[in-house]
């Protein structure tokens, strides 16, 4: 009789991350486009509203967060779209480890590839928007805590819409309402830091969003994918 070896969940997790990073490194424009979009929007704002330093500093948290949110929506579909088209998604559901593990790996890869570059250029964005320097750290922190929510909640939306040909508009419609609390608390935290109040409250809430979304999203994504591959 043939006997197959068991495979560890951790190994599958690493393999998926490795493969997806390799795939992404061969289609770089997909990765760069959202980042360039983010940079362009943030660069255009000072030109559009005028370079008055106080007005820019005041709207900076909102502008940076709204642009980050929209740019993440731009690249979101590729989370499962390509895998759906070439059949890799089907194969992922057939791996001998819990689907949640593979889904979590996909979310982690997406975060690494989309959010880390944003975190790297955050100081540049803050500078362009003339954000008071005492708020830079908090802005960075809100993005660090908030971007995993974007990836995790985004994965749920993509899992549900991946089999639809024109799922893009539906995806934004599904997701944006879910992300509004994140936007409100993130900008509240940065604004608190700007005026010199402790941002701990909203930051703690964003942290809670993050923990909640990355732990529960894989289960929802699994259910969504089951429906989509039918």
């Amino acid at each position: 009789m043939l006997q197959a070896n068991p495979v560890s969940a951790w190994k599958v997790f690493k393999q998926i991350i490795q493969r997806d990073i390799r795939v992404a490194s061969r289609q770089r424009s997909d990765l760069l486009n959202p980042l360039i979009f983010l940079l362009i929007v943030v660069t255009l704002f000072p030109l559009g509203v005028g370079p008055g330093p106080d007005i820019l500093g005041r709207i900076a948290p909102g502008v940076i967060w709204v642009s980050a949110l929209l740019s993440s929506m731009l690249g979101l579909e590729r989370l499962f779209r390509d895998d759906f088209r070439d059949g890799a998604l089907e194969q992922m559901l057939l791996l001998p480890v819990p689907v949640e593990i593979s889904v979590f790996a996909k979310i982690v890869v997406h975060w690494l590839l989309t959010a880390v570059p944003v975190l790297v250029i955050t100081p540049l964005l803050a500078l362009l928007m003339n954000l008071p320097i005492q708020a830079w750290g908090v802005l960075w922190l809100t993005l660090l805590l908030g971007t995993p929510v974007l990836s995790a909640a985004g994965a749920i939306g993509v899992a549900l819409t991946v089999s639809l040909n024109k799922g893009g508009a539906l995806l934004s419609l599904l997701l944006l309402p879910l992300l509004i609390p994140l936007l409100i608390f993130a900008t509240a935290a940065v604004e608190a830091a700007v005026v010199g109040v402790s941002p701990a409250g909203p930051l703690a809430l964003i942290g809670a969003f993050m923990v909640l979304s990355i732990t529960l999203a894989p289960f929802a994504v699994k259910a969504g994918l089951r429906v989509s591959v039918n």
Partner: protein
Amino acid sequence: MSDKVAVPVLLEANELMSIRGERTLFSDLQLRVQAGEIWQIEGPNGAGKSSLLRILAGLLPAQAGSVSFQQQLISEDREAYYQNLLFIGHKAGVKPELTAIENLEFYAAVQGVELKETPYELLAKVGLVGLEDIPAQGLSAGQQRRIALARLWLTQASLWILDEPFTALDVEGIALLHARFAEHLKAGGAIILTSHQELITEFYQVQALRLRYQH
């Protein structure tokens, strides 16, 4: 163990029913696949061949009935089933950005297979030598199919479910596949496949399950 032991039943489907849209594809379908058997699902387009394979693989829920692998319901012991199942569907799961070797190494690793030979030897077997550094998207349809089917050489799964494995393959590729099938059946494996071609081969006996188009 004595030789008298009955041939083990690998996969058993009971009273399966599938409805797609408004149409009943099949109902009361029974299937018993024993070790060493190859089953061909036949039927016209739209008769539900692919749906049946996807139900057997656990990708699609059946409206009624149950599927069990080695006497275990597949919904109850999912991991044990997928340890022993190799499913290759219409969309083969080959990443077009990766080379043949990268694709195969990924599938070997996630299925817990230790490569006994170098990936080059494996590629030589399926006739992809010299193409190992080209991303799969630069290869022809038949060559991409060969990458997916190369997984048959590095799997330890006992049950193979293959949807139209011969599509896009040339004569030589088809012969290669038949030889591999024979080897697998001899080792105590089983195969369920769909194909529009008559499987004519001296290597093994094909069991047929015929689905009819129901209005």
